[in-house]
């Protein structure tokens, strides 16, 4: 061995003088190999082999180094390569043959020993002959023993399989074929046997049958075997006659027959397709997909008596999705899937999964894309329709959203239909000619020791596609305490609210990116007879811009995580001395998980509020900050939201302020709104 290395090093050195690209890695490899740094040596041998791929000696020395590391299979492959590059090196051929035997490539090993025995050099012939004899006689003994076992126990699957394996190792393809076939007949569920059958048929020259067996295996129910078979068949799509031949071999292969049926359907051969679907349904009555398809075909050719029992069976036994398809198809028959080398269900499933992720992550445009794919894959998936509605809704494309909610309302799944119905009802007012909204916000203020209440009833009128909506409105602004106790004040009683109903008419713009413009004109009618600071009815004009946006995980079902909200209102109010006020209310915090039992769902947050006005009134210029909690209960309508806020405020204007610059206030109340 050492001599061989030296010789090769010398030759490599000589080659190096003529700029041998492999010289440098080879030199390193030999040095490292001598230093028992085998892993590094292997890497350099591999580099050298890549640079000089035709040099058998590199593969040979690489193989010997691999043997040092115990990597017998890799060593075998490199001896094999060295043998192919230099067929006259029978020593390498013997090494390869032995390693084939040791790594379970025994048929190849036996053939190699036989070849070397017959055609090798003098030194290798005797070894090869002895080894061939040893292998062959052991195989012969094994074959005899398992033949006897098969005779004694003819239905013994594993005996047939063992006998076939030994026969194949001994290159007795005929015997191997007979017993692989017998094993296949006993265990047709093992599509791996089809690969074995196909392989030995090919060895026997039965190429067409072999191709048919492999085609059947490639469409079998076991993905691993299908993948192996796919590597052995032509990459082109099979012809109908090839499908038919494969079915002759594997008549119970439902996947294969179904694919043929869909191929025929796509080719317009409906009669033949129907015949195949009939075959599937007869053999596998549980195959409801084929049952439904057969029903559709019969329906399409007006064979209602033939189609009805089939479709009824699907309606009774099929899952909701399939049953829904049948319901649709009872009006419009359609093919369930196209014949492509794709798993149509998986496409839709994957798209749905990606859509869910996108929805969860807030990537609404991506969600829309995936949902569209999912809808195309399965146009009758109501869950997808519902999600499309939500996606469009979140993208503020409510005109599209309402269409999808409307479709999803037709789902047979009550959870989908009720959710869709609810969403549809929420959106519908926006597109109705009249829309009445009622909201109220009563709350208690610890600072004023008073309960305030704000409320409005508003009926909007939709005028074509105009961006403006006129409306009629009645507001209520009042409180229970009515006025600060005058005995504590030097001045006249101070009223804490407007104590009025304000009836009027107004006009509002459509909301654009959270901004709405509005203006109202009306009369404020006081309900406190004792109040003397204003008349019983006074004109009231108010209007301005309103902005509201939420970010992150808002207080919505199943939402939890960080959130932020902002509301800004710039309002002109004639009653306040034609003042212009600006309110900014901001909250940021965390939406907690909804409790499963009680349905309690809360947000913890921090407030930052500011109020300013144009005229510099002390009561209209202050800032507030402090913690707050907002919560709701599942059994109550979703628009009932409770809130408690504790704020510390600072007045920004001292002039005319009878109170201190700092105030504290605890406010607790609830919001309720609905639209019809």
């Amino acid at each position, binding site marked *: 061995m050492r001599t061989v290395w030296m010789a090769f090093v010398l030759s490599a050195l000589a080659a190096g003088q003529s700029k041998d690209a492999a010289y440098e890695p080879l030199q390193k490899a030999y040095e490292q190999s001598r230093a*028992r740094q085998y892993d590094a040596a292997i890497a350099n041998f591999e580099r050298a082999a890549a640079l000089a791929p035709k040099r058998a000696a590199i593969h040979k020395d690489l193989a010997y180094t691999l043997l040092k590391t115990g990597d017998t299979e890799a060593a075998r492959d490199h001896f094999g390569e060295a043998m192919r590059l230099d067929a006259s090196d029978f020593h390498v051929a013997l090494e390869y043959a032995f390693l084939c035997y040791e790594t379970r490539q025994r048929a190849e090993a036996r053939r190699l020993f036989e070849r070397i025995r017959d055609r090798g050099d003098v030194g290798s012939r005797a070894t090869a002959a002895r080894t061939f004899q040893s292998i062959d006689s052991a195989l012969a003994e094994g074959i005899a023993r398992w033949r006897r076992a098969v005779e*004694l126990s003819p239905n013994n699957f594993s005996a047939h399989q063992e006998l076939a394996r030994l026969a194949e190792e001994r290159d007795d393809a005929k015997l191997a074929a007979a017993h692989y076939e017998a094993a296949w007949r006993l265990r047709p569920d093992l599509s791996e046997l089809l690969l074995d059958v196909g392989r030995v048929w090919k060895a026997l020259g039965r190429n067409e049958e072999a191709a048919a067996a492999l085609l059947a295996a490639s469409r079998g129910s076991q993905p691993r075997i299908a993948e192996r078979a796919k590597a052995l068949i032509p990459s082109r799509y099979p012809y109908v006659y090839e499908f038919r031949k494969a079915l002759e071999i594997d008549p119970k292969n439902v996947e294969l027959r179904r694919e043929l049926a869909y191929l025929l359907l796509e080719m317009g051969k409906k009669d033949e397709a129907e015949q195949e679907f009939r075959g599937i349904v007869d053999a596998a009555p549980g195959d409801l997909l084929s049952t439904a398809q057969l029903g559709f075909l019969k329906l399409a050719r007006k064979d209602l008596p033939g189609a009805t029992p089939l479709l009824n069976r699907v309606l009774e036994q099929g899952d909701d999705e399939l049953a829904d398809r049948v319901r649709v198809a009872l009006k419009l028959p359609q093919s369930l899937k196209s014949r492509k080398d794709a798993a149509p269900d998986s*496409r839709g499933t994957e798209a749905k999964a990606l859509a869910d992720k996108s929805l969860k*992550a807030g990537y609404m445009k991506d969600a829309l894309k995936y949902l569209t794919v999912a809808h195309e894959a399965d146009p009758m998936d109501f869950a997808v329709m519902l999600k499309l509605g939500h996606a469009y809704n979140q993208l503020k494309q409510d005109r599209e959203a309402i269409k999808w909610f409307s479709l999803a309302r037709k789902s047979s799944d009550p959870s989908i239909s009720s959710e869709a119905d609810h969403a549809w009802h929420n959106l519908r007012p926006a597109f109705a000619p009249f829309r009445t909204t009622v909201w109220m916000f009563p709350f208690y203020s610890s600072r004023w020791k008073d309960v305030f209440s704000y409320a409005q009833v508003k009926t909007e009128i939709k005028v074509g596609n105009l961006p403006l909506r006129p409306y009629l409105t009645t507001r209520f602004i009042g409180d229970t305490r009515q006025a600060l106790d005058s005995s504590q004040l030097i001045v006249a009683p101070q009223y804490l609210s407007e104590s009025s109903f304000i009836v009027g008419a107004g006009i509002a713009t459509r909301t654009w990116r959270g901004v709405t413009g509005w203006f109202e004109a009306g009369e404020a009618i006081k309900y406190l007879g004792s109040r003397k600071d204003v008349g019983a009815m006074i004109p009231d004009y108010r209007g301005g811009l309103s902005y509201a946006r939420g970010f992150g995980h808002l207080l919505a079902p199943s939402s939890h995580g960080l959130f932020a909200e902002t509301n800004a209102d710039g309002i002109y109010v004639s009653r306040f001395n034609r003042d212009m006020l600006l309110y900014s209310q901001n909250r940021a915090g965390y939406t907690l998980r909804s409790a499963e039992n009680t349905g309690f769902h809360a947000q913890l947050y921090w407030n930052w509020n500011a109020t300013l006005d144009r005229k510099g009134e002390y009561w209209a210029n202050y800032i507030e900050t402090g913690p707050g909690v907002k919560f709701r209960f599942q059994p109550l309508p979703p628009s009932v939201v409770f809130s408690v806020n504790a704020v510390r405020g600072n007045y920004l204007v001292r002039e005319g302020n009878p109170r201190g610059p700092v105030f504290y206030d605890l406010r607790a109340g609830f919001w309720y709104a609905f639209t019809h």
Partner: protein
Amino acid sequence: MRSLIKTVLFAIVPVAATGATFSYHVVGEDKGAWPAILTSVGLTESPTGIASVFVVRGASPLSAAQWLERAGQGAFVVLEGDSPVARELGFVPSQTRVVVRGVEDVRTPKLEIVWEKAVELPVYTVPDGAKVFVRERWAKAPLMAGLRKGPGGVLWLAVSPGPQGHERFPYLIQALGDLGFEAPFRSAQLWAFFDGSYRSRADLDYLAERWRKAGIGTLHVAAWHYYDSTPEGDAYLKRLIEACHKQAILVYAWLELPHVSEKFWSDHPEWREKTALLQDAELDWRKLINLTNRDAFRTVAAGVKGLLGRFDWDGVNLAELYFESLEGYLNPARFTPMNPDTRAEFKAKQGYDPLELFDPNSPRHPSKDASGMRALLEYRADLARRWQTEWIGEMEAVRRGRPDMDLVLTHVDDRFDTRMRDLIGADAGRVLPLLAQHDFTFLIEDPATIWNLGPQRYPKIASAYDPLTPRKDKMAIDINIVERYQDVYPTKQQTGTELFQLVHLSSGAFPRVALYFENSILKDDLAFLPAAASTVTRLEQTGTKLAIDSKRGMGVPWTGPAKVDGRPWPVRDDKTVWVPAGPHAIEPAAKDGVARMLDFNGTLESAGTTAKGFEFAYRSSSRALAKLDRAPRTLEIDGSQQQPVFFDSTLVLPRGQHIVSLTF
């Protein structure tokens, strides 16, 4: 404020004295299979987001630039599927789509990886400089790729790794390794089976070093190849044992009785076992001998004693001492034992030849009368137990002369898969009580029939044996890493994440884990095996101090002198500190003591440096081997002075529980 929160939440663990990665964080609520994947190599979850491996499944709290910045600081960022961050980094889906079923891992392109459920995905483009790790088999569309960034990197997957974590990308952990990821902890207590019959030309020192690096502490060597003494065979085995001992690996004689040896089979056709078809029982590779025959038994017992006496074994493993086959009586061509002695014994008890039970025309055939076959199966299970008792007795006789030798009984599980008793005569319920009278380890082999079940089966198997014996410390599990006959996915043989999950869960459930077999473990798995076998239950890092708790003791990546629980610690090599089971605090020390123990294959109980050397307590069911950084001047075991015995530079210590004190 928000960026401050991000900085705090997605910070990287400061690395103390090592480049290893200790914890992970999955961003978002749905963690998928990532905890199962990442804990399988010893990572612990960091709920705060202060970690070294981040998995981003949905919305990302950080931008691509921010993630890259963290990778540059040593973080590993895993991105799943299509997302704005992935797109920003250059992993962009095209309009073309591909149905993925067969995939190719570029590190092992010949390995057949098939997804059980095909998935249609977009064909992605990957950024320049990215290394594609996995691609679709036919269209070569990239499915997993990585970008290195300084000491860290970004790993992108086109789709989730699957519900259990191993369904789609077996070599996900190895891909992280290619990006620079190092597993946090090590165990060096694994057992492995070894058959040297086809590796006679391997460099045994090289193999032994590789095994030790892979966490193997004991090698069970196929001893039947050396039953008949030959100069070449004996020399090879002696070299193998020496090479192992030098690396602190114990070597056990693995016996597969009633297979004795090829030569014994050839020399004694009269003692060959028979199947129910009365053929010689040459089943697969095993050639079975009729050990019911007393002459055969005596001859084989003498031969085994000779085999054990000729070599410096540390233990013996009586494996699979029962009958064939997994097809039970339904396959008479494989049913044993039907030798004349057994049949005569059964006939003496029942009054008829058991062969009648296999004759379809006989009234005793089970299709007509089940009682006869039931009697035979009961007799067979009883016979297996008699054999096992008899051979344990023989081994104990050997042990009287070699008290340091360990004894292992490898026995197929029949509690989880209850059919084993009838199929092959294995009955753990009858064997386990023997632990009360005999000192041996009961190594449970999971039967081939359940090799397709997931890693969670090991804790279940462990709990099934709890009621059978109080000696839980003597229980071990044998994981068969071989091509499974079932229709399994994604690989026929366990490798990558699936293997790590198997090893990790079984290491948590059993005190000892054996792998069958050393050569079937694929090369790419070796680096992460010690991490998979580690059993850390708690980890806290405060500054340079590491507080850890483990079930069975382990190695912690560490460079430089260390203190453990405040004491200068002598058990460490240049990369690892070895600590016993339980909670411990490790911190840097100013300097080492006068000597160190670099490696130890017993169970370490405690240790500490002394003025002139160090001392430690241990227990071991066989001899224990300790590698020292220098030769000791004196050795004291349990208070009495002893003459040190060495294999090369490896100190040999006695079996049992001892306190050792060394001066230098």
